[in-house]
């Protein structure tokens, strides 16, 4: 053989023993993808890249962090932020990376809600996505405790106390979670251990998420299945380049936060050392937990013999658990909201409702803010439990195009498309 041929030979030698090249060729190069994906389809891969960034910065931070109640705060504020080379950069990337991760995943999730990506045959793909969100929340919460500032300590106290709402064994569970009789050193140690473990569990579930995705491929803005050959294009180079452009734009946004406003999304109170004897005037979680916090605090009344605390905790967890049932709560056969005139409007009301819940969560639940929170909480559940089933039943969807390529390549009048496409 000639010299130019032998790398090819080496590749096929290796591939016959471990088929990584075949796998990559199949899943990236040939992987057929709908030809009409918009930029809303960038956010899954962006979230995956942020996960890698979080693991990389996290591993470095762990080399300098000390998980002890007497030393944790200083090991971050003194050593990592001031003494360790580029420690400030690692820390701020990790800190803001968490916010970016949630931002991307929330956009990804709302994209799925708009275009009906959770419907058959992608229900399990959707479930895995919700599981990923739950795992992310656990990881973010435990990571937030590690700096051992005032918000770290009191967030840990309030969140672990949620489990005391469980009837009969609640208090034992809380003691077990703490490894003591209050949030303390054993709690910090186990949170650190789990915070290091969880990202790798997330990586595992991401793999499953991708396997489930590749079974039927991506949904698309039209929400119809691919029928003809020309409905698809190979993932590479068309979507690798589209993802790369999106990544560039996203990194600019990320960098603006890291370099110009690294604490904009955080709470100043967490730059005060944890003090178990003084509760801060207001305990507020990071922005990505605010809507759930609003739901929790909106329940201020008992129902029959069930105490308000238990109802609040149930409502908060229920708001997420509800998403598992969404493929069946939505009774419409049509996936994309583009062809669902009523759902399309209700969708945006729901988006506003979630933003209102976020705003309520950032404020004290008193007076009119409490009322707004209760109305927004009720609407959240109304949307999933009443509106979704009902609208699918009586709504008359607009006619679906025959195929993706027909709709995209033979569109009659471009201005009409621009009118509906703007918000999507």
């Amino acid at each position, binding site marked *: 053989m000639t010299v130019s041929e032998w790398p090819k030979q080496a590749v096929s030698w290796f591939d016959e023993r471990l088929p990584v090249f075949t796998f990559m060729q199949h899943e990236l190069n040939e992987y057929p993808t709908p030809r009409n994906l918009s930029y809303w389809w960038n956010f899954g891969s962006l979230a995956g890249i942020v996960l890698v960034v979080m693991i990389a910065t996290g591993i470095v931070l762990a080399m300098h962090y000390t998980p002890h109640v007497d030393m944790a705060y200083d090991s971050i504020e003194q050593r990592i932020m001031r003494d360790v080379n580029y420690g400030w950069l690692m820390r701020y990337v990790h800190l803001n990376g968490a916010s970016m991760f949630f931002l991307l995943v929330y956009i990804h999730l709302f994209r799925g809600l708009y275009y009906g990506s959770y419907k058959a045959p992608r229900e399990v793909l959707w479930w895995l996505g919700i599981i990923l969100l739950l795992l992310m929340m656990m990881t973010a919460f435990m990571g937030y405790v590690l700096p051992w500032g005032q918000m770290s300590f009191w967030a840990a106290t309030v969140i672990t106390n949620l489990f005391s709402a469980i009837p009969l064994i609640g208090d034992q569970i809380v003691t077990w979670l703490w490894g003591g009789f209050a*949030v303390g050193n054993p709690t910090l140690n186990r949170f650190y251990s789990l915070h290091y473990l969880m990202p790798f569990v997330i990586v595992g579930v991401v793999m499953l998420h991708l396997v489930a995705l590749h079974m039927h491929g991506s949904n698309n803005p039209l929400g119809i299945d691919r029928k003809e050959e020309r409905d698809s294009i190979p993932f590479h180079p068309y979507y690798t380049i589209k993802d790369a452009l999106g990544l560039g734009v996203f990194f600019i946004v990320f960098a603006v936060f890291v370099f110009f406003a690294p604490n904009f999304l955080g709470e100043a109170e967490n730059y005060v050392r944890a003090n178990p004897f003084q509760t801060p005037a*207001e305990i507020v979680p990071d922005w990505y937990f605010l809507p759930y916090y609003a739901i929790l605090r909106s329940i201020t009344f008992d129902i029959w013999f069930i105490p308000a605390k238990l109802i609040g905790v149930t409502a908060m967890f229920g708001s997420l658990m509800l998403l598992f049932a969404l493929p069946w709560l939505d009774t419409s056969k049509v996936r994309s909201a583009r062809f669902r005139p009523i759902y399309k409007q209700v969708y945006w009301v729901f988006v506003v409702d979630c933003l209102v819940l976020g705003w309520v969560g950032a404020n004290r639940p008193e007076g009119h803010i409490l009322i707004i929170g209760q109305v927004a909480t009720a609407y959240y559940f109304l949307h999933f439990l009443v509106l979704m089933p009902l609208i699918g039943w009586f709504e008359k969807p607009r006619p679906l195009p025959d195929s993706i390529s027909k709709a995209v390549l033979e569109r009659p009048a471009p201005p009409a498309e621009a009118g509906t496409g703007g918000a999507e």
Partner: protein
Amino acid sequence: MSDTVESSASGAPGAADGGEEGETRRDFLLLATTAFGAVGAAFAIWPFVDSMNPSADVLALSSIEVDLSPIAKGQRITVKWRGAPVFIEHRTQAQIDAARKDDKADLIDPQLDKDRAKRPEWLIMVGICTHLGCIPLGQKSGQPKGEWGGWFCPCHGSHYDTSGRIRKGPAPKNLPIPEYEFLSDTVVRIG
């Protein structure tokens, strides 16, 4: 593995001479082995779960002795017990009377004042709001004491009375009373 091969090979011709019985015996062995394995695994999980419960060194710090002699009437002090604050109040007669009068009031978590203080002049409670674990205010002079002159939790607005009973707000229970015992008139052991 070889069992399976053998059974499928002898299955069809041996059906008449007790082949089916052999299947049942194999099923039983499979079930018994699986059940035994599952129970064993469940027992093996317990040490992992229990290792997360409070350890001996944490439990060793679980009781403290407090000298009450320097606490003047009407004064409140906070001591640390099991990593959590304990409120000790040397109550005045007026406060005791107010608490007793409210025994008959419409309480969220009904409890008599005499069941909450072994000696009426000493009120000893865990100072953690029963809502979500914040520390109620009222221990230091100048802090809000709530509408009943006891304690007030700033997190979500729970009011406690002079017996530490919840009177208003989202907290479901009275401030808990720890185990304690008077070793003498001026020394109390908590825990």
